């Protein structure tokens, strides 16, 4: 994946001083772990996650803010990681799909609902969908179907036709923390 051709030297200035070097040391907290990586200043957060940190759950679709496959939470806010320059992520707290489940053995209720309701097919849109659903449920714990459509409007899916995604999110709020077994798969 390209970082859009940063071939030459980057000088980086902050209000606290000037230093010139080609790469920067990026410090951020990813899924609860303090992380330092050395990256191009204009690498996208998406590249940092996938290439430097090998968190490949975050996907790239369009690279232009239209598809939501790259959605992550940045300081709790849902953003497109393809539109966040690495420097902008300095000192932030990022949650990716890898950080959503409470443990290796248990899924988050939104993830479980996607499993139960068949909310994922090829799975490319699923990480972004789940983070968008989590951001929605934080803001609005009992959304109507219209609010779910609105909340997921920035996430495209080419497989499911969306209906099962919407019912997954509805199921997740009904489940109210408890995981449901079986379901209509």
């Amino acid at each position, binding site marked *: 994946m390209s970082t*859009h051709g940063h071939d030459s030297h980057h000088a980086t200035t902050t209000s606290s001083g000037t230093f010139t070097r080609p790469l920067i040391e990026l410090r951020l907290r990813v899924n609860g772990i303090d992380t330092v990586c050395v990256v191009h200043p204009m690498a996208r957060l998406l590249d940092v996650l996938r290439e430097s940190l090998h968190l490949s759950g975050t996907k790239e679709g369009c690279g232009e803010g239209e598809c939501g496959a790259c959605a992550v939470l940045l300081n709790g806010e849902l*953003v497109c990681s393809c*539109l966040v320059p690495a*420097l*902008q992520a300095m000192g932030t707290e990022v949650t990716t799909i890898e950080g959503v489940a409470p443990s290796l053995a248990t899924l988050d209720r939104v993830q479980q609902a996607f499993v139960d309701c068949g909310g994922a097919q090829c799975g490319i849109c699923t990480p972004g969908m789940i983070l968008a659903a989590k951001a929605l449920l934080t803001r609005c714990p009992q959304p109507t179907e219209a609010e779910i459509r609105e909340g997921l409007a920035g996430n495209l899916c080419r497989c499911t036709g969306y209906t099962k995604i919407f019912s997954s999110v509805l199921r997740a709020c009904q489940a109210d923390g408890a995981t449901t077994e079986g379901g209509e798969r």
Partner: protein
Amino acid sequence: MNAFTWVEVTTAEQAVAQLSAARGGSALLKAGGIDVLDRLKEGLDAPERLIVLRRPTAGSKSTLSEISEIPASRLPDSITRLLPAGNAGDAPQPRDCLRIGALVTLAQIASHPTILRALPALAQAAHAIATPQIRAVATIAGNLLQRPRCWYFRSADFHCRKKGGDECFALDGENEYHAIFDNRTCAAVHPSGAAVALLVLDAIVEIQTASGTRQQRLSAFFVSASQQGGDVKRENRLEPGEVITHLYIPLPSPDERSLYLKSKQKQSFDWPLCEVAISVRRAPSGAGSLLQAARIVVGGVAPIPWRAKAAEAALLRLSKLDIESVRAIAQAASDGARPLAKNGYKVPLCQGVVAQAVMQILSNA
């Protein structure tokens, strides 16, 4: 993308200083960066310095990222003198205003209680822009100042007039999403949805300059080529090196209403084919006409957010709501339209959204 210096600032004064420090070299201001990143990636802009205006880190506060109500008594004179007069010829009346900082995001605007209650056109417009992910990052000033979406302009392969070339590729090319008004030099439509709403709400923009601040009505801010001697390279009256700091919006009186509607190709998020904002002020009963003030601004149809003056005049003459009068107002909304080969559909569409807005606002006015 070229290599550039990244400079972080948290105040408008610092931003102006940095922009002018770069004079001679080129500098570009970035707020949310949604539009700027797109332009950098396509090579439309190749600044030597990127001046990043961001909110101060947690703890310190800045009016640039706040929405606050300013009572008339505390409103600076520089703003008061630009407020609309109650009646034509009167002196401007002091009014309570809402002040929105340049770095306030579209998501903040769409969910702010005062905006939802008192300035619904703005809340609705902000909510209709892009997606939740974009609205969480995109700022109000960035939305007003984003460059047009004309696909020839956005592609590095076409050196069109807006980039200093001598040809408009849209005039005889793929122009289905282009302007139907004022489109002979450059037919790109103004992209900002927030501008359409802010214009019917009489917003005032405050600008940081090298020597202080200046204020101007948003209604005099956007310009098309025909309004500036054929210069198509800019869409507004922000001078190089200046930075928007705040918007002031007079809070409406109880007899005023506003709303915003957007027509698009997709059911889910999409750029508008045509969008409209309307604000009206009811006339006292027995006045003969229904309204004493009306503003209609249409987006997606012209190089600037388009004030539909003939439709406003027809609306002001309205004495009762019936289908013939609405049809006449709608017809007036497309007065002066000169569609290109592929965007003729925008004429009836513009009439349709205006008709819908008029009926909707009068049925709950």
